[in-house]
């Protein structure tokens, strides 16, 4: 298992390399001169050239890219922000925890509610509850997130005064943003859980479990849920990834100083090192999340675990001793 994890982590490296090259190339060919933004408009062309030289913008593509990679690998240095002239890694690592936390919290909200609703509507298929939760879930999914966020603020912060409207200084501040994104994702997880659960409930082993005399509760939670959860994990991972990169709107509405807003602002300012860093960091965490999900798979599903551990003790069925003599 450990070998597998290490192997998977090593496999992330080429992905990140590819992404860095991709985004570096994309931004390299983006029109626009960063000195336009960071220098006064009346700065002379010489001063600009000088600044470009300082920023290293005048060097050929491969030299720049090589340097960039080298600094990341050797010093974990993602370059210097053009606008603030601070280390990008420092700035990113200040912002990133907020985004990460938001992604985690909203994934938890979405998972808890999505899974519970999904199970119940699968078990009570075609009842009013089922239809209602499907419709409500879909409605939540269809709502533009900014609209939902603002509505929640008006209700819970302004009218009821239960929660702060913005900022995440206290744990209370996390509730609304997490619920906003979470609500948006509940529908996906709920539908996945529901269909997966329905699929599993059709299987013979469920009937077998029933035929053993187990109570319905046991059948659902001991036998059906574990199996039904496996495809749901993928969905959870995906929503997590989406939140990581796409919480811009929510961050904006709830004033969370996360990476999304930071990146968008940086794009406006042609602040490429920040954009590259943000994309790489996000991709890295997303990849790690996927790894985590794969490990989780292995925990839940012994078949998958077996693939990872094949080198160790794979029992070839044929070597079984038990056979009936005639």
């Amino acid at each position: 298992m450990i070998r597998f994890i290490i192997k998977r982590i090593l496999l992330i490296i080429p992905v990140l390399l590819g992404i860095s090259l991709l985004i570096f190339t994309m931004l390299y060919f983006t029109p626009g001169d960063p000195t336009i933004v960071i220098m006064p408009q009346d700065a002379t062309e010489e001063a600009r050239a000088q600044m470009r030289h300082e920023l290293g913008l005048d060097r050929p593509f491969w030299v720049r890219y090589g340097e960039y990679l080298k600094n990341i690998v050797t010093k974990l240095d993602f370059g210097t922000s053009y606008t603030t002239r601070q280390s990008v890694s420092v700035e990113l690592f200040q912002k990133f925890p907020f985004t990460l936390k938001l992604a985690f919290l909203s994934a938890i909200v979405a998972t808890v509610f999505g899974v519970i609703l999904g199970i119940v509507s699968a078990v009570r298929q075609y009842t009013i509850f089922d239809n209602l939760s499907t419709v409500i879930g879909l409605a939540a999914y269809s709502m533009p997130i900014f609209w939902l966020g603002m509505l929640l603020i008006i209700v819970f912060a302004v009218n009821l005064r239960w929660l702060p409207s913005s900022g995440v200084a206290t744990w209370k501040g996390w509730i609304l943003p997490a619920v906003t994104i979470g609500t948006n994702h509940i529908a996906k997880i709920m539908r996945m859980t529901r269909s997966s659960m329905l699929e599993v409930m059709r299987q013979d082993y469920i009937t077998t479990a029933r035929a053993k005399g187990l109570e319905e509760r046991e059948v659902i939670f001991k036998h059906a849920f574990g199996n039904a959860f496996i495809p749901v994990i993928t969905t959870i991972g995906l929503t997590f990834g989406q939140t990581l990169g796409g919480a811009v709107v929510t961050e904006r509405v709830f004033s969370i100083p996360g990476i999304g807003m930071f990146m968008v602002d940086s794009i406006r300012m042609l602040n490429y090192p920040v954009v590259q860093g943000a994309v790489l960091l996000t991709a890295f965490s997303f990849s790690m999340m996927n790894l985590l999900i794969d490990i989780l798979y292995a925990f839940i599903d012994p078949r998958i675990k077996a693939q990872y551990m094949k080198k160790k003790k794979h029992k070839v069925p044929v070597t079984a001793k038990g056979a009936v003599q005639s």
Partner: protein
Amino acid sequence: MSTFLEVSNLKKHFKTPKGLLHAVDGVNFKIDEGKTLGVVGESGCGKSTLGRLIVHLHEITDGKIFFEGRDITNPPPKEMKILRKKMQMIFQDPYSSIDPRMTVFEIIGEPLKILNLYSNKEDYNKQIDQIMDIVGLAKRVRGAYPHELDGGRRQRIGIARALVLNPQFIVCDEPVSALDVSIQAQILNLMQDLQRDRNLTYMFITHDLSVVKHISDNIAVMYLGLIVEFCETKALFKAPAHPYTRALLSAIPIPSVHERRKRIILKGEISSPINPAECCRFAGRCIYAKERCQQEAPQLREVTPGHFCACHFAEEI
């Protein structure tokens, strides 16, 4: 009678994550024109792979195939096209072996289109109608989609698709095992009729010994990628030489109240074809296994005239 199809030392190895899978591992046999070779064996022993190799659905790892005396192991594309006309295959699963998005008419007509075997539209229609008539498909199902038809009819479509090219040789990969007995009998009869009328040569793959007995002239028994016994059908059922064949024969439940045979019940199950050891592959389950079986792989040899068997002790047991 001339040798129609000959296979020599045919091998197919699949690369899998766990190692090299020896699906077919050096198989030799001959089929005469107009005859049926039955291939039996347990699940996973390489029957289908063998059949596919012969009709060139898999790339051949090693060995040679001769058809009507010519080497067709690696035919150039042009010759391949001609071969396709001569050799066809009927598949096991009547559900997945026909494209669900085509009508019966389209499915049967497709080979004609691809190989351009009709002169005009009329001819095209006529050929299809003819073949449908031959396999017993009523005209009114022409426009039907597969999902509207039952297994028996679907299997007839599969047969028609193969027959429309007027092949000489057909590999039948368990064509009746997915069907109920009453339908199975209908299809078997049809296939026999066709063979008689068109002088077809069959390679008939199955795991059902009673079917194979009914339809074949010769039988090859496969075990783990190898042919362990090969002879005339009658000979095999009269005097099976290989211990595996014996066990197989005795294991078949007979639908009769009066017959009770002594059964040989094998231990364990067929072992993995991945990197098999150099020994008799059946040794692990064989009740007669001796030391030699563990050390040396037996060759297929002629134990009595026309009766081949791959067992060191075929004569003794």
